[in-house]
């Protein structure tokens, strides 16, 4: 059946996250961006919400709650509504942990999951993107060559979030025609982590480049062990999650512009009374809503174990295009004030264009 109904529990968690975002994230966002810093205090605060640990099975020290990609989409939209950079930092650990839960061998789970159930913020990171123009997640240049029981990884990655503090990287590489994910510790021999990259937006979220110069890893590093894992699904999940982040961002823009346009006067009346502005706002609303349903559809496909590549692709591409459109026109609604850093729309504009090319950094 087709249904858009939130469960009571989902409504509760949505409201709680909306409050958290408004109180703990929105006020931090501008300064974190200007100073390009991610405060430990925030990570600690967000860690206490238990976003990651509660969904890890009890046997590894987690809360053992059933994971619902749909519920996680609802949560992530609210966090991103607070701030997209901080939201990604908040849920980045889940990407790594969920990948292990979904695709890892028993040994891999035992080795890595307990660290995500402790009192302190702990994270791994996804090393997917590669330097250079026209990056395509389906055409990776990083390779894994078998050597003995293990593998030798060679290549370069960029835009690896939280490369400064991730304990391990999930390095996506071509392995003899297939694509695999390899769990690589940050101190692996031959692995070089770059200085923090400087990006257009999401400046509160440190990202790093990795150089993999013949990094030798054992057989236990291959996610899923001898069987490998469904990397495609892992990336689809990550793209669907990024779509949700963009929905939250777009909604933030719209909700900022509406009262602004009602308040700001020109030619003797609020600019919202001009069709040119009112129609822009209507169009923003149309696209925020439509983007959300595409993202929910992908999340629902994930939840039910259905094929998700196409629906995640659509959700990601649509949200990418429309969140850029919404943020760009948010700037336009504010006019000169949209261009200065006193208003958050300037920040959201940069976030939008940045998120729209990242291909995946979080998970549902």
């Amino acid at each position: 059946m087709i249904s858009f109904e939130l469960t009571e529990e989902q409504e509760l968690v949505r409201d709680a996250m909306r409050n958290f975002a408004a109180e703990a994230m929105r006020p931090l966002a501008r300064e974190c961006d200007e100073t390009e810093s991610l405060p430990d205090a925030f990570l600690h605060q967000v860690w206490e919400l238990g976003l990651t640990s509660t969904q890890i099975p009890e046997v590894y020290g987690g809360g053992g709650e059933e994971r619902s990609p749909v519920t996680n989409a609802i949560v992530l939209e609210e966090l991103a509504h607070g701030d997209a950079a901080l939201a990604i930092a908040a849920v980045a650990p889940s990407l790594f942990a969920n990948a292990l839960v979904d695709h890892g061998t028993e040994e891999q789970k035992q080795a890595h999951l307990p660290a995500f159930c402790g009192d302190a913020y702990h994270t791994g990171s996804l090393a997917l993107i590669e330097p250079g123009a026209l990056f395509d997640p389906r055409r990776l240049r990083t390779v894994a060559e078998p050597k003995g029981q293990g593998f030798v990884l060679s290549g370069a990655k960029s835009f690896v979030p939280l490369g400064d503090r991730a304990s391990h990287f999930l390095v996506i590489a071509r392995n003899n025609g297939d694509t695999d994910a390899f769990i690589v510790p940050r101190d692996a021999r031959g692995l070089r982590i770059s200085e923090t990259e400087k990006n257009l937006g999401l400046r509160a979220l440190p990202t790093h480049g990795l150089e993999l110069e013949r990094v030798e890893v054992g057989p236990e590093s291959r996610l899923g062990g001898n069987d490998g894992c469904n990397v495609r699904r892992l990336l689809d999940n990550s793209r669907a999650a990024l779509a949700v982040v963009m929905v939250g961002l777009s909604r933030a823009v719209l909700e900022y512009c509406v009262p602004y346009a009602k308040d700001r006067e020109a030619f003797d009346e609020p600019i919202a009374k001009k069709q040119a502005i009112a129609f822009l706002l209507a169009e923003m609303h149309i696209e925020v809503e439509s983007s959300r349903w595409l993202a929910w559809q992908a999340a629902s496909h994930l939840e039910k174990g259905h094929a998700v590549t196409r629906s995640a692709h659509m959700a990601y591409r649509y949200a990418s295009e429309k969140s850029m459109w919404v943020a760009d026109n948010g700037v336009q609604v504010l006019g000169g004030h949209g261009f200065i850093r006193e208003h958050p729309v300037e920040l959201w504009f940069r976030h939008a264009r940045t998120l729209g090319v990242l291909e995946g950094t979080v998970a549902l």
Partner: protein
Amino acid sequence: MPIDFTLSERDRGILQNVREEGLICRNYARYYDEHEEEFAPDVLPEAATFEPSFDVSAHPYDKRVDSGLPVISALASIGSTWGDYSVRMRRGGGGLGNAALSAAGTDEQKKKWGGLTLAMAITEPGCGSDPSKVQCTAVLDEASDEWVIDGEKIFVTTGCRADGVILWATVDKSAGRAGIKSFLVEKGTPGFVVAHKEKKLGIRADDTAAYVFTECRIPRENLLGLNEEVQTKGSGGFRGVMKTFNMTRPMVAAIGLGIAEAALDFTREELEKAGVVLEYGGSESSLSAPAARFIRLETLFEASKLATLRACWLAGEGQPNNTESSVSKAHAGTAVREICQGCIEMLGPMGISREHLLEKWLRDCRITDIYEGTGQIQRLIIARDLLGYTRADLK
């Protein structure tokens, strides 16, 4: 029920049936496009064995697993017009007036007239999108307990073939919009004349009529919803009339989307025949130009469809869906234009040949952003809701 985007067995069964019928209708699509003066038969010979597509009551409904009536109706509309918009209109039940009846009629009215194909008549020669300018009058003759209707209506979709019409008329011109009520007039009522049939860009087999009502008398109980009171305070009365739009707008969106989906399916097939590879999950940079464009258009379709289902789902839950109905119509109105234009451009010269239906779908779909309130009107409605503005605040 929790968020869900999958179809039940019943849902799929209904839609399968609709699609099969649609494909039959499609066989007649070109003929009736080129012979707009003829009407397609009520029952196409090959489709005689099908249940009427919209008779979902024929299928046992389990509210725990099956999609609700508005949602499945929208999906069925997509499926039917995917077959053919115009020829589909011959298969009863789907008139826009029926959506109005089901949104605003009393239970008894729904029962009584549910079996008729009903057109919806709003526009008048001078009024366009402005319902407050309705000149058509309905005067209650207490003596005979009848309403007396006088006036003209234009652009009445399916106006020639419908069994009856739901029309807007004012019972009190001084009350402005609050005086407008919906009435049902059956064909054959004295004083009700079909005056003219339009020649159109598209949906040519689906006739568009002009009506003239001259001292046309209908029973008092033909007032839709039976609410005779004119609420001059607030716009409560008119809202009742507008409510009829809350299902017609998403249904119009669905009708357009069915056409767009036909265009996409045809184009996908031709692209694949020509060796174009559609790949999902990667960057656009590795795709060919037509593949990238096609996937964008397909995505636009999907977004529009979900916005439409959302508006319908709210209706099914009995929740307000005024904004969402306009969102669905506004979204689909532009989406279907872009999709059909883009499909033709992708395929090149073959796209404009009348040997294929693609050029017809471009023409057919163009009405979506016009009737039942243009895209501009929908955006006004959305903006007012968003801003908390009245009609006076935002014109």
